[in-house]
């Protein structure tokens, strides 16, 4: 499950927020009404960008890495990379780039260590297909799949501070996720700072 409520809780009212891969801007609009943010977005899909602009949002159409290059350091209070890092060509570069441009960064991603996925590989011997990862291996946009553990190790290596985490999936039961997040969470949210 991908839940917006988790992001809402982390964002202070009135913040300046940049949303990567904002599409037609539904999440920006929702955050504008719940958190009174000043929302900005980048998306490469021209049709979605037209919709966003027609809805009155400040969106730039282009490649995320290129568009990010123009902003001065600490231009934003938050940059949100929601369900997108795994499709970036160079995730490490992008993550470090957005940590420079923003006070705080929110990264969310599907956890490849999730038990259903592991079991599928173990017993079926096939790349898993789930609600969150519905693609065939040959036409998936997800070119960098990783687990929660992988991501925590990455943050440690890059000296990125993890301010908060939240996990979803595996029903509403909290205890398995709290004890073994890497195994029992389908989707992960990280609040980061550098």
């Amino acid at each position, binding site marked *: 499950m991908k839940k917006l409520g988790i992001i809402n809780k982390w964002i202070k009212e009135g913040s300046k927020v940049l949303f990567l891969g904002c599409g037609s801007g539904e999440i920006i609009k929702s955050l504008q009404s719940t958190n009174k943010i000043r929302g*900005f977005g980048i998306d490469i899909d*021209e049709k979605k960008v037209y919709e966003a602009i*027609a*809805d009155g*949002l400040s969106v*730039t*159409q282009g490649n995320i890495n290129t568009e990010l290059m*123009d902003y*001065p350091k600490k*231009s934003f209070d938050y940059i949100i990379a929601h369900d997108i890092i795994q499709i970036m060509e160079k995730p490490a570069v992008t993550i470090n780039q957005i940590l420079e441009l923003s006070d705080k960064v929110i990264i969310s991603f599907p956890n490849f260590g999730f038990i259903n996925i592991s079991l599928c590989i173990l017993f079926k011997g096939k790349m898993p297909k789930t609600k969150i990862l519905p693609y065939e291996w040959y036409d998936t946009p997800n070119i960098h799949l990783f687990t929660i553990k992988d991501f925590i190790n990455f943050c440690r290596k890059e000296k990125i501070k993890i301010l908060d985490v939240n996990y979803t999936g595996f029903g509403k039961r909290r205890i398995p996720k709290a004890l073994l997040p890497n195994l029992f969470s389908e989707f992960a949210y990280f609040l980061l700072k550098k």
Partner: protein
Amino acid sequence: MENINDIGSIGLVKTNYFNFAGPPDEIILSSGEKLGPIIVAYETYGELNKEKNNTILIFHALTGDAHAAGYNSPDETKPGWWDLMIGPGKPFDTDKYFVICSNIIGGCKGSTGPSSVDAKTGRPYGLTFPVITVKDMVVVQKKLLDHLGIDTLFCVAGGSMGGMLALQWLVSYPEMSEGAMLIATAANHTAQAIAFNSVGRYSIIQDPDWNNGNYYGKTKPDKGLSVARMIGHITYLSEESMHEKFGRNMISGKLAPSGAADFTKEFEVESYLQYQGESFIKRFDANSYLYITKAIDDFDITDGFENLADALKNVKAKCLVMSFTSDWLYPRDQSARIVKALKINGIESTFTNFESSYGHDSFLIDDERLKNLFSGFLKSIREKV
């Protein structure tokens, strides 16, 4: 076909004329020369509200005029040049906004230009008309607003040269406008754009009838001006749109019989361009074409600044920047440069490289997506924090 009685048409409109800068109050141009008295032709649509904060200033392109919407007479067959966008319920909604469009100085559509009579000599200026810049054009439009008692703008908007004027407005009067629409435009011309204009100018001055700009009351340099227009017109279209419209279609449906070669009117595209040239000479002055193309070739918004970001540092307006995928005269990168400078300054901006096959002139095309985009942006201007 549009009609004066259409819902959404502003209907019958009148061109007004503002006279000012009579001696000794001439304006000082960028060149240091004086110009005056000056006449500015302008049209307004909609009503100025009580707060005087609903004005949208529209800037026309190279060969445009003050007549942006509606009809000047019931017999007029075509409405103003941006009638698609201006009118009740249209993106520049005249039920909400007070829209102004004025003809630039140097032009020949009612405002003072080289074809106007110089009060000092009683004869048309011709080449004695001073060199003007995009900045001068904007200064004169500011005088018009002062005259109309307007000191704050809701939005400035323009495409092509009109976008350059809008950009210049933001730099000259950064506090004055809440929004800006910079469409198919650039902070300065590329060498390629200058080259095309240069060939156009060369064609005019090579016409013997041009006579050093002194042709008023005599035979006009129609041949030179029509070729200049033909070249210009090619740059406003795209390869794709020309191909769709004409392909390799022949006028007679087949090649000319041997021995009777036709070097000018064999392909449909040739006759189309010739028609464009011939209709242009009826409505435009050759000297104005020289002065205005020179002004836009000379235009560089970074003049006097360190770079583009420095030039735009005081801008307060929320900006929509737009290029068109098939526009090779003012390509995407030209707009992207402006967006980059806005971002560096933390100015709220929106950018899209709009998918269209109509080339540079795409902003004049009837397209629902474009209308929605303009409406949405205009609505969002007041929401900016």
